[in-house]
């Protein structure tokens, strides 16, 4: 039972009708059970009738199972699926603006290169880095950049897609 209580991060993918109000209905399922949403991405799909939502939330497992079932019950949700533990392609994009005086530029650029990031803006004393990868990789890069004093960050939120013919 103890294991069940442990808070874990879960990536849930939803295919939903592209209609007003769907996001609120989905958010209410989480909110009613006191579940916090860590990240949420809504985007169009190749079919204009549907939208894709990718939600990362953390909390206890029994509640999460209940949430997935309740999400699937929503008339506007075509399907909701928890991809945690499955082999999926996972990506996130981050823009990170760091204080960057000339004497620290080299070190910051080295870190950027290590994480395969790009410099997308540069001023006298700031640098903006764009980086793409797994959420964990972005977290590691942020740790490395912390000592240079980060001015702001914007992250896209996690995107996932099932491999091969599996549907997301």
């Amino acid at each position, binding site marked *: 039972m103890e294991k069940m209580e442990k808070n874990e991060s879960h990536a849930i993918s939803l295919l939903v009708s592209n209609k007003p109000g769907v996001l609120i*209905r989905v958010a209410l399922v989480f909110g009613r059970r006191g579940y916090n949403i860590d990240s949420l991405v809504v985007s169009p799909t190749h079919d204009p*009738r549907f939208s894709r939502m990718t939600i990362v939330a953390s909390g206890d497992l029994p509640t999460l*199972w*209940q949430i997935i079932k*309740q999400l699937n*019950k*929503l008339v*506007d*949700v075509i399907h909701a699926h928890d991809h945690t533990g499955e082999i999926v392609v996972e990506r996130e994009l981050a823009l990170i603006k760091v204080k960057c005086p000339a004497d620290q530029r080299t070190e910051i650029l080295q870190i950027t290169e290590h994480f395969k990031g790009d410099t997308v803006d540069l001023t006298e004393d700031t640098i903006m880095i764009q980086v793409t990868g797994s959420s964990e990789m972005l977290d590691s890069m942020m740790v490395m950049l912390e000592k240079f004093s980060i001015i702001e960050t914007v992250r896209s939120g996690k995107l996932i897609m099932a491999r091969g013919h599996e549907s997301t």
Partner: protein
Amino acid sequence: MQKSKKKLKTGADALLECIHKHGVKYIFGHPGGAAIPIFDALVGSPLKFILTRHEQGATHMADGVARATGRAGVVLVTSGPGATNTITGLITSQMDSTPMVVITGQTITPMLGLDAFQEADVSGISYPVVKHSYLVKNVHDIPRIVKEAFYLAESGRPGPVLIDIPKDIASTLFEPNYDVAMDLPGYHVPSHGDPVAISQAADYLNKARKPLLLIGHGTVIANAGPAVRYLAETMQIPVTNTLLGKGGFPETHALSLGMLGMHGTAYANKAVVGCDLIMSIGSRWDDRIVGRLKDFCPDAIKIHVDIDPAEMGKMVVPHCSIVGDARLVIEELNTQLKKGDTTDWIKQINRWKKQFPLSYKKHGGLKMQYILDELYQMTKGKAVITADVGQHQMWAAQFCKVDHRFHWITTGGAGTMGFGMPAAIGAQMARPDALVVAVVGDGGFQMTLSELATAAVNKVPIKVLIMNNRYLGMVRQWQNLFYDDRLSGVDLEGNPDFVKLAESYGIKGFRIKRNAEVHKVLAAALAYREGPCVIEAVVEKEDNVYPMIPAGAAISEMVLGPPKKKMAKPVGST
């Protein structure tokens, strides 16, 4: 080529035509500015509009129709406060899975979100209390949306659906296409259960020595009663029912244990504790029936049949779960039965029935139990009984046995005060030949008593039996048992003279004050068919409902009568 001359219609005309095509006879509601185009379309419509005195009353009447027939009841109200007044009725319907379609007027589309007069974000407010809701933005969507709304409300696990229609959309002229397909790619209704799970359930049942069937509202909704009866009789399995499961299996049957749970029969609860297998058919293991979850039948095999996959493992984690229509699942299960031997178990249960019968003192002050027992004896289960919420409801559930579906109508999950009387009006209008008795408390009755006017105007011959103890009795019971009798906010001083109140509406009033009057007055009231009547029963002020399992306690902690020592405060919800 001659162009087909289709007549242009307004959105409101099309709306009502679609509702009528669905077989609806009555619409309950209250008008207001944003709904006037729809009310205008009602003139000349074959649909009969019933003007209620409050929108909450309208929702409970529609719910009464739903629970008396299995078909969706329909409500029509205006925007803003008219719409928000339906929220209580929506949650009542949602919690108990009853079909209802609520139509709300809305401000014109260009004013949406601009804080227009009587504007409320009604679809937004409705989200947590409906199965689905619509805001109509295009008049051409009306035929599809109405079709979908009734389908959603009545299929699968039923529930309320709300349609919010802006005034300009209702007034727009268009050429309606009624032959339109539904567009519900995310909605699937389970029907036949998984054959592997059904075989597994059959296997468990065939091996069980002390099995028990727990039937809920789903049995009633799916009309699984005959299949359940075949299962119970073939396998000789005792059957207990939830509050809303009354009517799913005849409570007068030798295998019936009546209602279980917080105020259920002692023998039903003892059977739950003692069984080696419990199979729920269309119940959601509500906290009123399982008590402390971790102590609920710890050693019994649990089988769960439900049409809603989200109910699986929500409360009780079953050994075997079957998602499907209760009737289809049980009919399939019935083909795989091997007659087991439950003789000893049945004997044990019959001993419990003898040892712990439902009882009350037949002399002394006037008791609700006596009146309800008498009502039952006089109507022999033929009446449709509606109940509000509280002590009278629990006693009605204990003493008024129900044998057939659609003969018992009450608010279960939501426990909505004010439900009973309007629900009776709806039930009576849907089934004009039925004898409909509303059993209500003096507290709940006063929450929707203005609907007496609706009953009077439409000459709806319901009998409203008001149990007047001048207390909010169930809360008083809790304060008495768990809070040292520190009564707080439960004294209903200022009650009107209910007989005179009825008479002021032109309604016949009766009063019962003594035991000796019970039979005579009830007989007169039951025989009165000229219109509605009110029977005020002035009952004992202080009486408590037993048996009782304190909220959150284990079922084995049930008390059968007034406790000798002080009881601990319940840890369960309410």
